[in-house]
Each structure stands twice: as C-alpha cells, then as structure tokens.
C-alpha cells in the first residue's frame, strides 16, 4: 500500500476513534450542537493564527482554533446567562457570526497573503488526501493524547455527566473538568476540520455516539463502541473516497449515518424492530390471557 494512503487511513481511523469517544460525553450532556458551533467558531481563530504565523501549520491552527472556540463558548454562556435569549438561539448567533468573521478573514488572507497556496480553503470542506506527513503526525499524537485523557479522567467525566450536584458534593472540580471536556471537543473538531471539513466534523461527534447509545446501557461500553463506530466510518469513508474520487468527509458521514440507522432499527434492546416485536409479543400474551379468562379457564 502507498505510504500516503496508509497515512490517510491511519489518521481517519484515529480521528474517528477520538471523536466518537469524546462525542459520547457531548451527546449525554445534551450538547451535540456545541460541536457544530465549535466547528464553525474555529475558523476565525485559524485565520488569525495564520495571519500571525505566516504559514500553514496544523499545530498553530490548533492553538488559534482552541482560542476562538473557547471564546465562543464563553459568549454562548454569557448570552444565556444575562439575557432572555434561549440557548439554541445563542448557539446560532455565535456560530453564524464567528463563521462570518472567519469568511471575512479568509477572503482578506486570500487577497493579501497569497493564501490560496496556504490550503486554508481545505478547512471548509475537508480534503483528507491533502494531509501531509507532518499533519498526520500532529493528528496522530493529538488523537492518542485525547484518548488517554478520556481514559484517565473517565470516572470523573462519568460522574459530572450523570450527576453534577453529586460530583460537586464529593469535591470533584466540576468546572475544571467541564473545561477539559470542552477543550477536548474543540481540539478534536480542529484536527478533524482538515480531513472532513467544518460542517461534517460536528456529525462525526454526534452520529457514532448516538449509534452506540442503542447497543448498551453502560457508559464504558458506549464510549468504546462510539470510538469503534467512528473509526470504522473513517476508514470506510477514506477507502471509498480513494476508489470513487469523491470527497472523504461526506462519505465518512454517510457511513456513520448508515451505522446509526442500522442501530436505530436493529439494536437488540432499544432498536425500533425489537421494540415493535416486543410490543407484539406482549399484546399476543395479553390476548391469550383474555381469551382464557373469557372461557373461564384459570391460568
């Protein structure tokens, strides 16, 4: 196999793994759309980082994006806390205004800095094939670090996700850990931007996690499954994209959605089909009971 192809496969698998695992927590905290907001809010940070640094570097972009992603969450929280505007509108405001600013900066860079060669445009739509060896290294290291962070703080994340008040009661630094989680979301979005693009990166956070939710009631299994689903979609998307000359990002998302649909329909306990079958069986039992009762037979 070509080295370049191996790079793409490795990075897509790792990206899917990390975003699936992190997405699990975002989903359970009902913050799925925060991933969407982060993906859009990262753009101005990336552009400003480019203006300062002068050339394309995934690490510098990561720092810039993390800063603007953090600012975006602060803005959302400020609006929700101090006005009567609800959270969904606050997310929408921040998402679209930050992204608008990003587009303004992008057009500015394209005119003034010869930015067309900088590859910033790839960040909008994603182009896994354009990843260089250096990018893949940064991506790999970041993804591995993120997975380790999740494993290390797993118990704490679990408690703050399910029972915040209890976590506070037993002395867990809730806001710090929330910050860590938000930082993980921002980072995974940023390293994913170049591979799958702004719009679809948020899907890579939500969809595998949602699919995993159908198979298990345990957080540990769900996190693991979400990671596996993400990695599978990443590799499958990259593979088809190489054969069919279609952009990687959308294919990854289509595979992830297919996994979700399969889980939604056929998962053993929570899936739609098993629910329908169960209801049918129970109704039948009830009917038999009724029949026997009417005939005066005892069970």
């Amino acid at each position: 196999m070509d080295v370049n192809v191996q790079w793409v496969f490795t990075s897509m698998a790792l990206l899917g793994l990390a975003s699936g695992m992190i997405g699990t927590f975002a989903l359970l905290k009902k913050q799925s759309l925060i991933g969407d907001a982060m993906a859009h809010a990262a753009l101005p940070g990336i552009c400003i980082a480019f203006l300062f640094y002068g050339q394309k570097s995934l690490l510098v972009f990561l720092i810039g994006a993390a800063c603007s992603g953090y600012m975006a969450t602060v803005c959302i929280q400020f609006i929700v806390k101090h006005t009567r505007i609800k959270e969904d509108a606050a997310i929408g405001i921040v998402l679209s205004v930050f992204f608008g600013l990003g587009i303004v900066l992008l057009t500015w860079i394209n005119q003034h800095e010869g930015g067309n060669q900088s590859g910033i445009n790839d960040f909008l739509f994603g182009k896994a094939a354009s990843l260089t060896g250096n990018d893949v290294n940064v991506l790999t290291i970041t993804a591995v670090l993120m997975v380790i962070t999740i494993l290390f703080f797993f118990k704490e994340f679990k408690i703050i996700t399910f029972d915040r008040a209890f976590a506070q009661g037993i002395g867990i630094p809730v806001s710090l850990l929330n910050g860590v989680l938000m930082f993980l979301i921002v980072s995974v979005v940023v390293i994913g931007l170049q591979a799958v693009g702004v719009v679809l990166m948020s899907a890579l956070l939500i969809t595998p996690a949602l699919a995993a939710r159908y198979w298990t009631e345990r957080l540990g299994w769900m996190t693991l499954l979400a990671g596996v689903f993400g990695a599978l979609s990443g590799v499958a998307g990259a593979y088809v994209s190489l054969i069919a000359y279609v952009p990687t990002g959308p294919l990854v998302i289509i595979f992830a959605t297919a996994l979700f649909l399969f889980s939604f329909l056929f998962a053993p306990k929570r899936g739609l089909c098993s629910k329908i079958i169960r209801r049918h069986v129970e109704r039948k039992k009830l009917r038999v009971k009724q029949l026997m009762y009417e005939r005066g037979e005892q069970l």
Partner: protein
Amino acid sequence: MSYTIWILLTATLVGINCGLVGTFLVLRKMSMLSDAISHSVLLGIVGAYMVSHQLQGVSMLLGALLVGLLTTFLVQLLHQKGVQSDAAIGVVFTCLFAIGVVLISLFADRVHLDVEHALMGEIAFVPWDVLEVGGQSIGPKAIWLLGFVLAINIFVIVFAYKELKISSFDSEMAITLGIPVALIHYVLMGMLSLTTVASFDSVGAILVVAMLIVPSATAYLWTDRLSMMLICSAFIGVLASVIGYVGATAFNVSISGAIAVSTGVIFFVSLWIAPKHGLLRKWLKKSPV
C-alpha cells in the same frame, strides 16, 4: 452605480425575508432548525437539478421545499422515537448535506454549482444574472425570486397572524382553541425552506443562518410585542446589509461574511443599550445611585 443598488436591494430583501421568518423560529426555540435546513437544502437543489436539468426557478424552489420539509419531518420522527432533539437535528442535516455534497462531486463536471459557492454565496455576481422577458432585461433573477418569496411570507403572516402568534407563545392553548398547530408548523417550515433557498443562491448558507437568527434575537431584546418584533427584526436585517456591504467594499472582503459580522455587531450593541432587556439598564436598576 446601479450595480451597487442591485446588490443592496438583494441583501435588503434577504434581510426582510429572514427577519420575518426568523422571528417565529427564535420565539419557538427552533433556531438550530434553520441551521439544519439551510444546509440540507443543498440536497434539494442538487436533486432538482438531476430531475429537471436546470438550476433555477420553480424546480429549484420545489426541490428545496421538499427537502426542507423532509428535514423537519425526519427530525420530528427521530425525536418521537426517543432520540434527543439536538442530536436528531445534528444527525439528519449532516447526513442530507453529505449526500448533497457527494452528488455534487459526482456531477460536478456538468453542474455549475460548487459547494464553496453554495456555502459562502456570491452576492457580487447577482447583478449579472438577469431575467429577460422578450429580449428585454427586467432586473436580476435573484431580486424576482426574493420578491416572490417575500410576497408569500407577508401573505402567510398577515393571513394567519393570530394563529401563528398563539401557537408560537402557547401551543397548548392553541390546540384547545382548535388551531391546527401541526399544519402551522409545517407551513412555517415551508416558509423557512423557501426563504432559505431564495437567499441561499445569492448569499450562501452561512449568511442565511446569521440573517435568520441574529436580527430576530436582537429584536427580541428591544421589544415585547410580536408585531414590533417582526418590523424591528426586518429593519435590523436591512441595516446589517447596508453596513456589511459598505464595510466589505471598503476592505474588499466577502460581502456575505461582512453582513454576518455586522448582524453580530448590532446584536452586541443592542445587548448593552436595549431599553428594557439591555444589560446597562438591568445593572442600573440593580444598583440605584
């Protein structure tokens, strides 16, 4: 000169359309549905092209309308089957958008419709794409499309004002009064899809989201009356268009992006100085000097 006027007129029409529809979205806590529809509409446009082999007019509107309603329908279906609402929105629109992008890239050599153009829009090209009747140019196509959608929007809002109002503020009371709440919901989603697709081609998905949510949320800070909120939100949309256009030409940057930023600036200013719900007023009230 007329070049500038056409662009300003387009942006103004987008501002009014989005301001009117967005008000109901913000009040119904459905803001993110506009983000969803503005992306999934792309699939409708591609689908319409594949069926009718043309990229404008009625087929595009119909395609977008269908996909817009499909999006809402799927989101609601998943939600009813136990998927939490934010995740339902996220899954549906990203999937439809992904299918749209794949279809575009498969037909890219034959379609003049690239994803970049669709997302960022190119309002600067609007004046050159004119509608001709009997060899006589009668203004840009975008203006006619937006004007047509504006007429529909105003007609629906005037015709069903009371129903829209009651079902937005108190859907349970609306049901007891016998107002067809589900129908109103889908009519609103239809308006949203039409508005999105009409604005989409000239200003791009991102500005549509900005124009739908930000001016309406800003208007929500200024007034408590629905009628005032509609007018206020349309006015802010127009104001942002003008400021954004002037700024964009001054710095030679993306017009759509600049308009989105100016909606943000107006929101930020309003956040402080709005008469009743502004922060300055609230803080003054708290600490009487």
